């Protein structure tokens, strides 16, 4: 996708009819040198609100996370917009070989531009290409019942809403109700 700056009004964005174009969105593997770019979202309390982690206050623990969790992870990608790292998307193993769980995080500066939707669609395409030979048939996303933005994103990306799993997910001291979404290897990718 070529980068195009398109002015758009608040009303157009809200109505969902705006043709949203973003800078070129790519996915690549993380490197240790990405830690400073990661701090942009990892330190942001608004980003951390629906994530499992507390905002990072220094790069040292973030570097440890990068080294110990991200680099050895079976499928963890940096989200790049016009070459700059602005977020992360991962598809993590579960107790079943046929299903993995999608997670993503995006710096606040890039919310509301269609970046996350493009990322999720790209990630689904890539992860099934990579892992269907290993038995992957289902990518699921668990979204807090209060996280309407992520629910809309899952629906736009073509996930099927399956139901609410009550008190299914431990999040910051409480067991939360989560909406379960799934995308199967033979579901049609919306475009």
């Amino acid at each position, binding site marked *: 996708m070529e980068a195009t700056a398109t002015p758009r009004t608040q009303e157009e964005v809200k109505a969902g009819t705006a043709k949203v174009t973003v800078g070129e969105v790519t996915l690549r593997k993380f490197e240790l040198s990405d830690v400073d770019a990661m701090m942009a979202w990892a330190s942001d309390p608004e980003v951390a609100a629906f994530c499992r982690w507390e905002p990072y206050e220094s790069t040292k623990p973030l570097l440890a996370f990068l080294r110990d969790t991200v680099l050895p992870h079976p499928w963890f990608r940096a989200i790049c917009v016009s070459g700059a790292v602005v977020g992360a998307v991962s598809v993590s193993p579960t107790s*079943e*070989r046929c299903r993995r769980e999608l997670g993503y995080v995006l710096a606040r500066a890039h919310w509301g531009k269609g970046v996350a939707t493009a990322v999720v669609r790209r990630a689904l395409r890539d992860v099934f290409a990579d892992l269907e030979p290993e038995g992957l*048939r*289902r990518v699921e996303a668990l979204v807090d019942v209060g996280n309407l933005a992520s629910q809309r994103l899952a629906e736009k990306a073509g996930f099927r809403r399956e*139901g609410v799993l*009550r*008190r*299914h997910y431990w999040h910051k001291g409480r067991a939360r109700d989560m909406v*379960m979404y*799934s995308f199967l290897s033979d579901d049609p990718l919306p475009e």
Partner: protein
Amino acid sequence: MEVQQGGAPAPAAELVVSLREFTLSDADAEAFMSWASDPRVVRFQRRDAYEHVDQARRYIADHVLPHPWYRAICAGAGAPLPVVGSISVKPGPAEDGRLFRASVGYRVAHAHWGRGVATRAVRAAAEAVFAAWPWLLRLEAVADVENPASQRVLEKAGFVREGVLRKYILLKGRPRDMVMFSIVVDADTDRRRQQNKPDGP
């Protein structure tokens, strides 16, 4: 633990169902074979049917006895009541090292299907683990979409149906659609939110 139906003396036709721990006895291993070797019962289980009682003996020793919560389902007539199935509750998975959920699974010998044995056993197991584990907030169970009998057992036992999870679990190598059920402790009232129960403990 022992759970009996009703408080008054049971009429002759009343079904008595109780749960107890397994032992290493030959009798328990043989009883185990009555469902573990039956293709009709193992059809919706991950394991293939057992062919020899030694497999049951080994499974009881290596898996059942060390398990956090595994019980023999006893039902019918006579003393002691015959073992007709098994039921197990597996804590977890934990998150951030925190235990708050568990999942229940059960199997009943084919000869004892259709009489409410599984329903009573599941109800008794749910009562027992919620009492024994104060950390438990969610007890869940899955049933294959092609297993309506098991779905009915869970509904009658007070579980709430949450939805169909597509290609959720591998059964004998094939991904299956599963119906998810649960009983949860209400976040606000600390009371159990399950269906067909009056408001109360």
